[in-house]
């Protein structure tokens, strides 16, 4: 087995890529995908600690995270669908109706 630190750094990088996606991409769908990357990074942490500490709680919690991720995607895509219905685009630059 490789040290837990290496996996942690990996998941940190994955999380960073996800954050980058959310920050720099303007396509709502890609931003949602980047959110999924971040969720996965968190999950990897949970799993690796579950193994390191020999505890089940990490795996159980990972399942809940997946559950939340699935819900988030379903609702997120529904919102994007509604936005697209109203504005005809998924570029978030166009959704500036609240800007003063």
């Amino acid at each position, binding site marked *: *087995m*490789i*040290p837990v630190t290496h*996996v942690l*750094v*990996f998941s*940190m*990088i*994955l999380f*960073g*890529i*996800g*954050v*980058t*996606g959310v*920050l*720099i*991409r*303007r*396509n709502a*769908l890609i931003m*949602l*995908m980047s959110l*999924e*990357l971040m969720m*996965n990074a968190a*999950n*990897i942490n949970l*799993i*690796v600690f*579950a*193994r*390191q500490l*020999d*505890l*089940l709680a990490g*795996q*159980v919690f*990972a*399942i*809940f995270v*997946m*559950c*939340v*991720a*699935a*819900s988030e*995607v*379903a*609702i997120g*895509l*529904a*919102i*994007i669908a*509604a936005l*697209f219905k109203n504005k*005809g*685009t*998924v*570029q978030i630059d166009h959704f500036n109706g609240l800007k003063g």
Partner: protein
Amino acid sequence: MEALISFFSHYMLYILMGVTILTAVGVVYSKNAVHSVVALLLTMILVAGIYLMLDAEFIAVVQLLVYAGGIIVLFVFMLLLVALHKDEALRLFNTYTMISLGLIAFLVIVLAVVFFGTPFGPVPETVTHIVKGGSTEAVAGALYSTYILPFEIASVLLLVVMVGAIVLTKERVKL
């Protein structure tokens, strides 16, 4: 041969992690959104592989079922439904790209230093609680005893999401 095998068993996780980072970068930096989804699919499959290497075979299978079988299908459907070709002419990135990239790189480096400085202790060669009888049984046992309340709440959450998604996308019926 033996050396090769031991090499693979030791470095498989590194290989998986490396490829995962590549595909994850592909998700963010693809110009075509469908390429992003394909990259995301590969990422999810690779992450399932990582789970498998970390003795969590049940989570790995659930990862495949939930992400590959469900979530990404939703993404692909969404991509095929919304007209993305109109947005392809738009700029991929904006002026904040460099700043955010710098900040994130800084964050990653700082946290990596912190991780390397933290004494996590040695890695256990075998894990008894998880692997005994397979992680499936262990996780199921835990889910239905210790964590029964969160489990039920999760099911309620899913129900709410189901209703919410339908309400959001349903066309307004004029009464």
